[in-house]
């Protein structure tokens, strides 16, 4: 089998397993939202809904049909992008997700960049100084950040950098007195850059910095830890020793042989972390008043808004599945041993 064939086969297997995971997600979400509640229409319509509203919900979501029929429409609706109308706002749920999701992407991407850069940098320093005081200091630092509860870390960031030092705003995505740029990507900073609106761009960066740094600080530890282990492993591997024995320059050995091999795990972990952050920013979004999908989900939970909650949960899970798929693919590209091993 050629390398290309191996890769293709591996890809197909991974895509197939992702599809199975997606089917599983659909079944679980359906069971929780439709089958476990004795009267889902009443629950979905909200605590103070009138009988007419309850009936409308029942008809719209086929809740008066047998479960297999309900499941058919459930899957059909969501696969065709027919997320329905938010009963509280009267707006298209797909449109609402289209507003909130890019905001979360902005926060997640910004923090992911910081996480990877900071994580790898510190992991490298730590590994190179294995056993030394720098290594110990970095390990204490990342363990402390990693062990910090999100709520506490975010609150401390607000108190320290916004309340006392007044370096950043304590919340929000941009100044509410500004006019937002025309929507291109939905990501505020990017759209303001595309439209050349520097006031918006500056305000966007100013508001993004603290929540992104906070999210990064609370999550870079795992990258540092993995980068450190991988680099250490690579550092003591025979091919590195062999390269050194050949008299290759130390800089070349570090970059080409140690760092490059050490980053394989970081790449894949970064992709997984993207999915994790996507669905895990609720607390940070709440504390920083960041209008992201996590906060949207939180509001939907608080308002008993099942018609919104179901597609949001699906978006989260699809995000995680895709991130895992990307991680697998990256891993297989960067480390051929994976696909040669039969595509685990």
């Amino acid at each position, binding site marked *: 089998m050629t390398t290309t064939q191996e890769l293709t086969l591996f890809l197909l297997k991974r895509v197939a397993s992702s599809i199975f995971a997606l089917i599983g997600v659909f079944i679980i979400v359906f069971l929780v939202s439709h089958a476990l509640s004795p009267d889902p229409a009443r629950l979905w319509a909200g605590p103070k809904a*009138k009988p007419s509203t309850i009936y409308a919900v029942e008809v719209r979501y086929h809740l008066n049909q047998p479960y297999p029929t309900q499941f058919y429409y459930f899957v059909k609706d969501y696969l065709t992008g027919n997320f329905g109308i938010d009963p509280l706002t009267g*707006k298209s749920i797909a449109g609402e997700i289209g507003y*909130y999701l890019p905001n979360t992407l902005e926060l997640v991407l910004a923090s992911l960049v910081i996480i990877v850069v900071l994580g790898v940098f510190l992991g490298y*320093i730590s590994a190179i100084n294995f056993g030394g005081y720098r290594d110990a200091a970095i390990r204490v630092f990342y363990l402390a950040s990693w062990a910090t509860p999100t709520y506490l870390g975010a609150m401390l960031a607000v108190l320290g950098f916004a*309340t006392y030092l007044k370096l950043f705003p304590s919340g929000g995505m941009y100044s*509410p*007195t500004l006019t937002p740029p025309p929507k291109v990507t939905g990501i505020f900073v990017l759209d303001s850059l595309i439209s050349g609106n520097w006031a918006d761009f500056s305000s966007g*960066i100013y508001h993004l910095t603290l929540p992104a740094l906070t999210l990064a600080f609370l999550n870079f530890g795992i990258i540092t830890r993995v980068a450190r282990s991988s680099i250490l492993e690579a550092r003591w591997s025979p091919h590195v020793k062999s390269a050194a024995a050949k008299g290759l320059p130390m800089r070349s050995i570090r970059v080409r042989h140690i760092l490059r091999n050490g980053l394989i795990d970081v790449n894949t972990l970064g992709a997984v972390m993207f999915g994790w952050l996507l669905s895990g920013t609720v607390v940070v979004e709440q504390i920083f008043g960041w209008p992201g999908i996590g906060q949207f989900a939180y509001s939907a939970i*608080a308002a008993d808004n099942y018609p919104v909650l179901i597609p949001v949960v699906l978006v989260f899970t699809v995000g995680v599945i895709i991130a895992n798929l990307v991680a697998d693919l990256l891993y297989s590209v960067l480390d051929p041993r994976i696909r040669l091993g039969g595509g685990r």
Partner: protein
Amino acid sequence: MSPKNGISRALVVGLVVVIIVVAAIVGVTITRRTTPTSTSTTTQISPVSTQSSTSSSIQTSTSVSPPPTNQSSLVVEEGEQPDSLDPAVTYETPGWEVVEQVYQGLVAPNGTSVTSYVGVLAQNWSVSPNGMTYTFYLRKGVHFSNGDPFNAYVEWFSIYRTLIMNQAPSFILGQNLAYTNGVNFTVNASTLNSINYFDPSPQNLSVMEYPYQSVQVVGPYEIVFHLGYGYNGYSPYNAFLATLTTPMAYAVDPAVVEANGGVVANQTNSWMFSNMVGTGFYMLKSWIPGQSITLVKNPNYWADNLSASQLNYAIQPAIINTITIYYKPTTARIADLKSGVAQMIEAPVQDYSTLEGIPGINVTKLPIAFGSSEDIYYLYMDQGFAPFQNILVREAVSYAIDYQGLIKDVLGGLGVQYIGPVPPGFPFYTQATAGLQPYQYNATKAAELLAQAGYRATLPNGTVINPNGQQFPSFNLLYTSDSTTETEAAQIIQAELNAIGIPATATPLTFQQYSGLMYTVGNSTQYPMGIAFYSEDYTASIDYVEAITENGYVSTSAYLNSTIMNWAVEAATSFNNQTIAQAFANITRAMYDQYILIWLFTPYFLAIHADDVTGMIPNPAGSGMGYFMFYNTVHYT
């Protein structure tokens, strides 16, 4: 080449990056620093008037002080963002707070009073002797922020729009008004969408001027409300003006609605959900969902050129130019108040001691009526659960709870024990509870009553009495884990009941599951006991009494008693204060003697703002920070 050299280079590169980032941040920050405002005096907050009156007299104006200078902006922070900005849809305090600034109704509470009213879009009004007809004479020269005029046709449209959209809070009007007279006249969505409200045709007028309907236009500036078409049946309603102070009755621009989807029966309007065009002193500048709402002064406000003698507090032009309301968690709000980022915040009463210690901040414990308008807590015992059919058991439960201990432990002492269903601080509370003492804590008596009811019971000293009696069956005590107050109260009540031999198990549900169950008509076998609460829909004692005595929900023990319901009808329809007081007293006594609900406590409500912010006119009807109606009077000293 030693590793040390490589490490040093890496550190140097890292250091350079850090320096660049810090320099950039400092640069951006320095260019964004603002000058903090100064602080000085404190705000005077008057207690709520408990004066009881159902007068139809005309209120003209309250004195309007000249606006101080330097009133550029105010930052306000609270926990929940609006559920909607459409006055016909919003049913939560944050939504009402914003709507009350941008839209206007016919009347508003008269300053701090909860029983008298001032005209807003109505210049004055009269009530027929039988209380069935309210005639409003509207102000002339009123217009929306886009210039469209307000008149009686627009008000007709606005009321019917609310009724036809039929959203959850529409019952506030639907008690007395309906879009059909049930015989030969019905207003539907297409009727509303087809009328020209600024230059009505004779055909349009024939519809709006038809006399046998809930809302009848008499002239361009005169409109009559005929009560008796709603689900209350043909009877007057002495809290009708209170219902008109709610957003349900606020004027919306028919042209704007028509241009953005029109009226659709039983449906919300997505444009109106997040856009606002009203007659009020503020306009919506932006709503960044999940972040903030910004209001700016309406530059085209109809009352801008009125003289001081023509104004009252509810219509006077706004003083502060921009109000931004951010939505954040409590800790972040307190931090922002402390740092001067926010000038007003909303915070639970449990944070009183923290807030009190912040210099430059005014924290006022408002009269208990404000707490009542927010929440009154009680314990229900569903009589579908056999043991609770025994009055001795219910009485035993009433003695088993240490009410003062609950208030101390759960609310830090900042609450009152009360006797419902009239909420403490509201009109007629004193008369309704005259001669009654709140339920007392007496664990010995509780155990004795339980034994008397035939159950094995335990005295506080551990002695088991009636050892051959039945073991009280175990059951779930429901509360919502979303509420800290309920969570803590449930644990304490569980322990106290267990102590006398009632094996209650405090069982939490999420608020969605909890509220879904609470508002179910009938009994609950799974949760025969639970902590429930009630918040006002409009500021009137009858709102609480009707909800608690008439609805038959799980949260009220599925309690339906025809005698009590008749008294409630009497209290709702009479214009004689003595009759109303007597009806409330009868209801209170009957429920008290039968231990139908165990009235627990009402927390106090806090007004929290920077010392230099003043002008708030507190009223339990208000949604501004939960305690005042309008931001137009707010300013800096």
